[in-house]
């Protein structure tokens, strides 16, 4: 190759490499927009809210005096609502996904169901709130209770759970299913003994991510009528008399973290805004720790299973 041809090739490579550099710069800028926004948000909230964070903040009910106001009813409410959400969404979502993946015949009817589930994930949450107001609160007479709220959020994250479970089930190689069938297992035995346990990391990841979304939901909860001010806790689930467990708390009125925050931000006093920032910080930590748990579970359980 002569010198001129060689130089041409080098120029060409240099020109092409410039595009690498340009894209890397643009990409970095795009990433920074997301990262900087998030960091600024967190820093602002920490500065505003952290002075209010104390043991009392967690154990006090809301109050007219900002210095005495706490998030006790809000975090207990959020926790109980999440419990109902998990208990309702996980079995229904996982069973639905298993049916669709392993049992359902592949025909137009299944296709319609699949499209519906995918679209359901995109329905605005306020619409779920309206549905729940009509169905749970009035038609089924569950009232403005923890149960109604939990079921509403359960419906909301159902598509997320179904989609995540289906993905997890699909990632199990066909050779493992064939191995189970080949020794004489039925479809149910194959599903219960193999498909479900091996897809558990994926299912749990999906469930936790869904829950992390649900815990921050405000609109549907306001729609079904959560209280904005509540100075008592739901009845305890454990009682001193037989049968020692009580489900009265399911029907109790409640509030949740985002609503408590919303309430405080709409007050004129700056001190309440500090409370809102502190509650936001707590909510953010709850969400982040749920996501961290999802990542950890995926990492731990997947280490054991390599196809």
């Amino acid at each position, binding site marked *: 190759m002569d010198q001129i041809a060689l130089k041409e090739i080098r120029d060409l490579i240099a020109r092409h490499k410039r595009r690498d550099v340009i894209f890397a710069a643009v990409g970095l800028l795009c990433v920074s927009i997301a990262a900087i926004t998030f960091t600024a948000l967190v820093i602002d909230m920490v500065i505003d809210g952290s002075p209010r964070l104390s043991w009392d903040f967690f154990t006090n009910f809301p109050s007219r005096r900002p210095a005495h106001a706490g998030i006790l009813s809000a975090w207990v409410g959020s926790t109980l609502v999440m419990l109902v959400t998990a208990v309702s969404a996980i079995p229904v979502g996982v069973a639905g996904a298993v049916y669709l993946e392993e049992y359902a*015949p*592949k025909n137009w009817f299944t296709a319609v169901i699949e499209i519906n589930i995918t679209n359901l994930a995109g329905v605005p949450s306020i619409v779920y709130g309206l549905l729940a107001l009509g169905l749970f609160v009035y038609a089924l007479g569950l009232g403005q209770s923890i149960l109604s709220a939990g079921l509403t959020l359960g419906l909301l994250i159902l598509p997320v759970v179904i989609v995540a479970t289906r993905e997890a089930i699909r990632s199990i*190689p066909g*050779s*493992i*299913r*064939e*191995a*189970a*069938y*080949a*020794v*004489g*297992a*039925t479809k149910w*035995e194959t599903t219960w*003994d*193999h498909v479900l346990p*091996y897809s558990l990391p994926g299912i749990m990841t999906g469930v936790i991510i869904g829950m992390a979304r649900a815990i921050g939901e405000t609109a549907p909860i306001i729609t079904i009528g959560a209280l904005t001010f509540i100075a008592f806790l739901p009845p305890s689930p454990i009682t001193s008399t037989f049968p020692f467990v009580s489900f009265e708390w399911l029907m109790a009125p409640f509030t949740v973290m985002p609503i408590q925050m919303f309430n405080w931000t709409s007050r004129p006093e700056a001190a309440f805004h500090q409370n809102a920032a502190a509650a936001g910080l707590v909510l953010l930590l709850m969400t982040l720790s749920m996501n961290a748990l999802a990542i950890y579970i995926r990492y731990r359980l997947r280490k*054991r*299973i*390599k196809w």
Partner: protein
Amino acid sequence: MSKVTEGQLAAGSLVLKAETKRLNFHYGAFQALKSISMPLYEKKVTALIGPSGCGKSTYLRCFNRMHDLYPGNRYEGEIVLYPDNTNLLHPHVDPIEVRMRISMVFQKPNPFPKSIYENVAYGLRVRGERKASIVDDKVEQALRGAALWDEVKHRLKHLAFNLSGGQQQRLCIARALATEPEILLFDEPTSALDPIATASIEELITDLKSKLTILIVTHNMQQAARVSDYTAYMYLGEVVEFDATDTIFIKPKNKATEDYITGRFG
């Protein structure tokens, strides 16, 4: 059927374990097997050879009704299992019953992501065996049968994935043996293994035929010659020639078989 085998059958030294009669198999509109008829002799190793796509694995998977797992597959004809004269392909015969009598070892080792012990015990659990002492005994028996016991007896609770490829394949053989099947199907069991592991699997196959009937698919002609008593050469979904392995490899009657065996084709 060759003169030799007819003579042996008459003399009673050969017993029919299964017989395929005019088997056609369709994947949707595509006919993968065309009018296959051939015997399977008890306690012998029968090899299926032929170029890729000739239908040898498809035929093997008819024996444990694996094709029932996927929609659009259709069988015609019979595979009769002796001595009870059950047609394995009959729509009224439950594929699960068939799989409880006929085990299979796959191309790639496919142990469950469970312990070594649980892998072998799974077939027993599916059959409802709950008594720990019986399961323990049968697991040991199966692992001994698969020449794996000495290597794993101290770590039965370890994950099966920690074994080497050859050990994993022997574990899969043990899993298939644990339920004492009548026929063992091998679908290219050594294609994912190194030569040393391959040799140990081949040795194992030769040992196993004293206890059960073996049908093996292989793309390796030397392997067919080494391990099998009978060989069927398949091409484009048909059995071109079936005979004693020696006859197939030394004096095939069909020109197409000879071309394939001698490497002029395939």
